């Protein structure tokens, strides 16, 4: 299928973008950064085209649904939201140093979707419970939230790396110097987490509305629901710890890492537990 071919090319484009971002960080020449940005944008454009082709293909096959209905499609969509959000942030902040941490995540997700065994890439009809407009809004908001949390996670890692080097009194290398200032990273980490929190809230609300229609109750403590609640609480705690307890820097970085671990478990780990949401079955 043409869409999976396009999407597997996107995987390589994202990898190239990552390599150029890395060149920029190691060689310290902004030229590589410009190249990286344009490669990443080209990747996002191809990615978008791939999603649209896949969407159209599902209509041509007579089942007509947004490409967000099985595990493969959700991975592809997740990577798309990450690339989109990252490029928006880069454009707004005029700062490219997050790219070297975020693009590899988008690349790894795409690669996993393309090569991991047991992932069904075919377009499949929707079972009745999934035939709802709430599916689209639910998946869209959840993944926008996940993408924002991914950015917060990348910043958390960057923060820890930078602070580890600055504490020991090394003369930091180019790579470390090109990272944004600790203050800036802390600020951005918090903003990303807030953005993610709002989208996750919307995701949980739309999911509840959908569950209300499809399964008869807005909340049934299904493992995926429960884990999304746990994730939501972790970020609520992070928010309060900062606003009221004044947590900053390293503690925030650790919170964004813990939060991201919960996101990953909500998304992937829960499939090990029996669930209504299981993409794997």
């Amino acid at each position, binding site marked *: 299928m043409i869409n999976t071919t396009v999407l597997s090319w996107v995987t390589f484009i994202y990898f190239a973008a990552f390599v150029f971002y890395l060149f920029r960080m190691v060689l310290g020449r902004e030229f590589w950064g410009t190249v990286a940005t344009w490669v990443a944008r080209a990747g996002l454009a191809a990615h978008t085209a791939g999603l649209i082709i896949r969407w159209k293909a599902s209509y041509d096959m007579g089942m007509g649904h947004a490409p967000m209905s099985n595990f493969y499609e959700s991975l592809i969509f997740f990577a798309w939201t990450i690339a989109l959000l990252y490029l928006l942030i880069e454009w707004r902040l005029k700062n490219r140093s997050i790219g070297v941490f975020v693009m590899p995540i988008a690349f790894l997700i795409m690669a996993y979707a393309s090569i991991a065994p047991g992932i069904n890439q075919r377009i499949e*009809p929707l079972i009745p419970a999934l035939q709802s407009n709430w599916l689209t809004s639910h998946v869209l908001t959840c993944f926008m939230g996940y993408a924002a949390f991914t950015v917060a996670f990348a910043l958390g890692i960057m923060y820890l790396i930078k602070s580890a080097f600055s504490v020991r009194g090394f003369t930091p290398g180019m790579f470390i110097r090109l990272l944004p200032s600790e203050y800036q990273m802390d600020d951005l980490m918090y903003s990303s987490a807030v953005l993610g929190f709002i989208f996750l809230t919307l995701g949980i609300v739309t999911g509840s509305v959908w569950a209300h229609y499809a399964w008869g109750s807005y909340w049934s403590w299904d*493992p995926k629901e429960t884990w999304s609640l746990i994730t939501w609480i972790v970020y609520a705690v992070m928010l309060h710890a900062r606003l009221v307890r004044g947590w900053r820097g390293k503690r925030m970085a650790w919170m964004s890492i813990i939060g991201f671990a919960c996101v990953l478990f909500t998304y992937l780990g829960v499939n090990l537990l029996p669930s209504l949401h299981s993409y794997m079955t």
Partner: protein
Amino acid sequence: MSRKKSGIWSFFSSVQLAIVLLSLIAFFALVGTLVPQREAAVEMAARVSPGLFSFLQKIQIFDLYHSVWFFLLMGLLAVNLAVCSLDRFPMAWRRFRMRPSAASQEIWKDISPADRFQAKAGLQEAAAAAERLLKKKYRTSMREDGTESVFLCARKGRFSLFGVYIVHLSILILIAGALIGSIFGVEAFVNITEGETADAVFIRGGERMILPFSVRCDKFTLELYDNGAPKTFQSDLTFLKDGKELHTEKLLVNHPVEFEGFRFYQSSYGAAPGGKATLELSRPGGKSDVVNVAAGYTFDLPGKEGTFEILKVEQNLMNMGPAVKVLVRSRGREETIFVFHHIDQIRQMNPGIIDQVPMFNPGLVRPYTFVLMGLEEKNYTGLQVSKDPGTPVVAFAAVLLVGGLMLILLSYARFVWVRVQLKGEGVDVSVAGRSYKNKAGLEKELQYLLAELKDNLERPA
């Protein structure tokens, strides 16, 4: 703060407590996804000792989300939220009502050079330009004229001060709604065979609950994809009360039907036992008749020589496939006979069975011969029935929650000031601002104001 705070009050208004409670709730929720809950707990019973199992059951670990512990944590969180919000609301209210004076002096104490510029313009001209700009951006502005200076002040976004309280209130309402649901709500299911009527549903654990009305499934329709997966299934339902048909509606997956506060959801389907069968009846030399039969029906035999009655229709009798039990009354004789669909296979598999069980012998009611042509496939529709009076409360809370979050994200409360002072030939224009959060955003806004003003004043008239 004038109110003396008791120890309990300050305990419950602390955010540390909130962080501890939220973490505990997250931890409990996590345990609940690892330990099998409710019906699934049965498998645990087989794996641990009975003593341990009954202990675990007593501490409600198998129904964690409905346990005393969970209610307790939720209750504490609610008290924490309420007390904390009450504690802080007066401050937010004061901030909301605060009217700064335009000529407030301390604001200008440590103003950075980046926040001011000089221009060749008259005092009144510059002040008018500044006032126009503030009016455009903030709708209103306050002005105070001095002899050598003019002070202007505007504010924006003060309603966002309430965002946090709206969010917190929404959590309180959410908890209340969930509580209403768990006390007054009903979760049940019922299977109704096509054409039949149900007047009761089954609650968890198999307990029967009589409905204040009855439901009939008029028709069940199933559509499949080419690969055999279900595409849609739907039930045509009629709601009755005292035998009167009150309401008819189609029920589809994702499109529940509501009647008198009970919501019906299409959740499953299956093949129903019983139903109708097609029998062929013949006698030597005569023509054969095909009749549709169901349990309880009585028919005349050909030539009015007697009657036959259908006693039972079985989908699968003793693993020998579909069968119908028929009572034949003729010439003062009564015989009961089982008519099988697969009689030839049964004979082959169990030679001699007809001698052992005369009721299985098709020749028993000679001269008549019955043949079971087939059973009519009949489905039942599986309905989930629920009643949750807390749902509208929770929905309202969700709207508040999202609205409050938007208010916090999209706006923030700030004051901005502009001072225009005579200086030599021209004027000195400075800007300043105050906000509780988003200092970076405020600084950007001030720079924007400064650039606009500069632009206005330097542009030749």
